[in-house]
């Protein structure tokens, strides 16, 4: 089953600025994690911070509006994402628990399989 791991945090959670050594170490840990789990991992991307975002608001019949910021306005933000292919949710959970990046939370979202109509997965 395919899932996307969303690496989440809040904008005020940065705390004291981390030293260059800390950052280096985190990147090295993430690198190890990727190597260890390479057979189960697809795309992975870190995102630039939300203030770099531009959003297109689609308004049905009316013309789209371009907005200078992220869609999600709250303090919560998504710092990156990673595609994984694993047997089931338990395996995804196990993988997410070992994520070494400096994020507060990892949200696991199943990907809609192509042979299923999307309506089936709506809440």
């Amino acid at each position, binding site marked *: 089953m395919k899932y996307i791991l969303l690496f989440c945090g809040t904008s005020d959670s940065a705390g004291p600025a981390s030293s260059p050594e800390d950052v280096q170490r985190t990147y090295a840990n993430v690198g190890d994690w990727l190597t260890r789990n390479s057979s189960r991992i697809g795309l992975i991307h870190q995102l630039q911070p939300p203030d770099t975002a531009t959003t297109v608001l689609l308004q049905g019949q009316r013309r789209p509006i371009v907005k200078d910021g992220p869609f999600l306005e709250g303090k919560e933000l998504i710092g990156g994402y990673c595609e994984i292919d694993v047997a089931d*949710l338990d395996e995804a959970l196990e993988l997410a628990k070992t994520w070494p990046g400096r994020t507060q939370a990892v949200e696991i979202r199943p990907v809609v399989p192509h042979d299923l109509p999307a309506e089936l997965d709506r809440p």
Partner: protein
Amino acid sequence: MTEAGEAGPGPEAARTTACSAQAHAAVAAAFRAEAGHLTASLVRSLGDFDLAEESLQEAVVQALEHWPREGIPSRPGAWLLTVARRRALNRLSRDARYAAKLAALMREPAREPDNRLQLVFTCCHPALRREWQVALTLRAVFGFTTAEIARAFVASEDAVAQRIVRAKRKIVSAGIPYRMPGPEELPGRLPEVLAVLYLLFNEGHLTTSGSGWRRDLSQDALWLTGLLCRLLPGEPEALGLLALMRLHLARADARFTDTGDLVRLADQDRSLWDHDEIQEAVALIERAAAMRRPGPYQIEAAIGPATPRPRPSSRRTGRRWSPSTTCSCR
């Protein structure tokens, strides 16, 4: 058994009513013991939680129709499984996409190893909301109907049906597996199951004195906790919860007035307590304590017997427990 006489409520009618009540009780009893087995067995062969569970519900409805008329079968569980499998077969044969599942179902032996635990752990997966876990456990493991769950939790049938539908949908779309957690996951997963069981127990225990008929949830919860202890003998918290439940039940007769009000511990008639039952609960706590992995249920249960212990003086003043009284029951 013949039909009730046409000439109004005669002895035959009375016998039918008695028989119907008996059949209801038999269905309830067969369920307590078998529903989990049956659902687990069907889920395994079908790989489809929804279908397994629907088929079993249909079998229950049939049992409630047939047993009062035709008598209770000698092996109620086997009867239910046969009917449920037939229902599943009927549904599957209507749909060509399920040819493989159909083949699996035909091959399936009537009995297989106990996989009710897998079922319980699936129903109580932490990815499901607590009220979904509760509804699903009652439905799949205990074989409650939607109406029975609604009655137990004073919710509308629609709300309960929604919870079950959403839970089942999440199991499928989020890929929640049907399996027993490994030893390294168990510490994280067992508390979810125990919490659901304690909740069910309290729901039944604290409200059984209420009016109207309701199935005894506390007995169901007690039964499943006992099963959990047998299947996971190395888990002290499961034993702790079992002890806690038995302590509550041992004092149940003294806990409520005739009108259903709660009686404070100090005012309870201790002659109504079941002291043998208390002793057995204490033995369970001792067994758990010997594993030297304390936890909230063991502690709550250990506090329990410290209070019931008869005081040297007959005056009911010393309700406080102290480390020494707790130690006396180790």
